């Protein structure tokens, strides 16, 4: 009986060690809703496309002036017959670059401190302390690149946190298409 218990404890220990080695193991997929301000960024599992949004819906999602607006049918870069939207919202508190490319999921790069990013039940802003981020990341697993970049994976996609002076410098969202 003691032998069985030892094997059980050993197996459990090995299992825990394996998970510690790759912090992406405890990622969950297709479980998280992601919001940028009030705009839902559909993730891969939802099988939605940016055409679920109208341009006016996107414009009204952020209370920040638009400084750049590109809306066109994609050219040969994307093979044609696709939409390409690129918006930049910018004021003294920072900016949001939002790109909807090739009928893929929206991607964004955010330095604006008043536009929240919601992941599941967590609400995170640029300028938040890294201590809040640590707690958030440790519940989901993450990958680290250098000392200033952290990644978490959400439904096959990637949320990137840029870190500077112990606070969040930027938040970015990228598809994982290539």
């Amino acid at each position, binding site marked *: 009986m003691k032998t069985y218990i030892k094997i059980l404890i050993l197996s459990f220990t090995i299992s825990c060690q394996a998970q510690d080695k790759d912090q992406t193991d405890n990622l969950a997929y297709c479980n998280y809703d992601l919001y940028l301000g009030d705009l839902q960024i559909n993730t891969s599992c939802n099988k939605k496309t940016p055409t679920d949004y109208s341009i006016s819906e996107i414009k009204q999602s952020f209370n920040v002036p638009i400084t750049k607006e590109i809306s066109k049918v994609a050219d040969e870069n994307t*093979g044609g017959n696709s939409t390409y939207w690129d918006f930049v919202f910018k004021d003294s508190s920072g900016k949001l670059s939002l790109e909807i490319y090739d009928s*893929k999921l929206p991607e964004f790069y955010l330095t604006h401190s008043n536009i929240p990013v919601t992941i599941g039940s967590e609400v995170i802003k640029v300028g938040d302390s890294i201590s809040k981020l640590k707690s958030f990341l440790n519940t989901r697993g993450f990958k680290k*690149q250098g000392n200033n970049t952290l990644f978490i994976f959400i439904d*096959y996609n990637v949320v990137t946190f*840029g870190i500077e002076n112990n606070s969040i410098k930027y938040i970015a969202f990228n598809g994982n298409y290539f």
Partner: protein
Amino acid sequence: MNNGYSQADETLDGIIDYYEGQGFDVTFYNADQWEEQGFYYGGTLDGVTLTNGGYNPDKEKSTCTGCECDGTCNKPNPNEKPQGHNPCENGGCGTNVNDADTSTSNTTDGAGCKKPPTCDSDTQTLNLSTCSCDDKPKKNWKLDKDNDGFGQQKSAIKSPGGDWVVGTVKGSDCDDTVHADINNNDCSKKPCKSADGKKANPLINMKILPTPGDISARNSKPVNGDFGGRGGNHNGVDLAAKPGTPIYAQYDGKITGNIVTSWPDNMGGLSWNEFRDNRKDSSLDSNSGGNRFRLEVEVDGQMYHIQYMHIQEGGVIHSRNTEVKAGDLIGYTGATGSVQATGSGGPHLHIEYWINGQYKNYADPKNFFQSNFDEFGNTTNPCE
């Protein structure tokens, strides 16, 4: 020999009349031809009085004492010319220029003779000063600057013989003309090809991401590099490749599509998202595929565009409409674009097949590889 005509006759017509009157067939030479025939030539010929025209008895014999590798004569007086013909032409090599055959003789018995050896054009060059074959500089350079063993652009490289050469090598440790296996530094390897030579693998080492160290994570969805992975959004195959790995044409075809070359390898310490945001401010390409190009091919009567992404800075080596053959070098892999930001498993070649060249009309690239793969992304059929 006597000219037989007077100064008064030394006009073109006078000469013609005189010699034809003597029963000769008259052939005129220009100044160079005239001297080649061994005659002095004292002035312009056509319409101008000839002075001192006449045969030079001293040129009955060529003064060639031997032949150089390049077919020129050794002569005591470099200004003299051989009689009638150059005995050193056509590989000739002799000293007795009274022998009319010397111009085509292959004998090597003449004093001072230098008969050019036959050099291997692939590996040797003819050294005219020594009349011997010198080895060409070997180009399977080892990148010695940082001993990284694989290709980045370098400005200083070291040959196997240890000679420093200033130059630029894109990607490979090996000569571009040799199909390089950059991962193993074996410049003799080539990509697998079909028996009929019409189909080749795009890389020498074929391995679908994740890399061997991540095999346990192959089914981990974020890094699954197989076709249809990542929630169905991965429309190509990711082949593991260190930056600088040579890419080969899979079929005969031509370079096509939108060719993007503006992404650098070095992002100046910025993360990819920061770097990309700066680029967008200047309206540069922001596609997460990075540097890219396409190859138009036809397979079994069906046209495809093969899209190659994340190409190294400087790794797009052909311009649009360049025609290539299966197995030809067409570029170098890299890590431009979102490779560093999306957890895609590390540097790789993202390769897509567009049916009829249409975006979003994809075929599984694995169907076009010469290799087959097991569940871990390793090849199952060794390359012959």
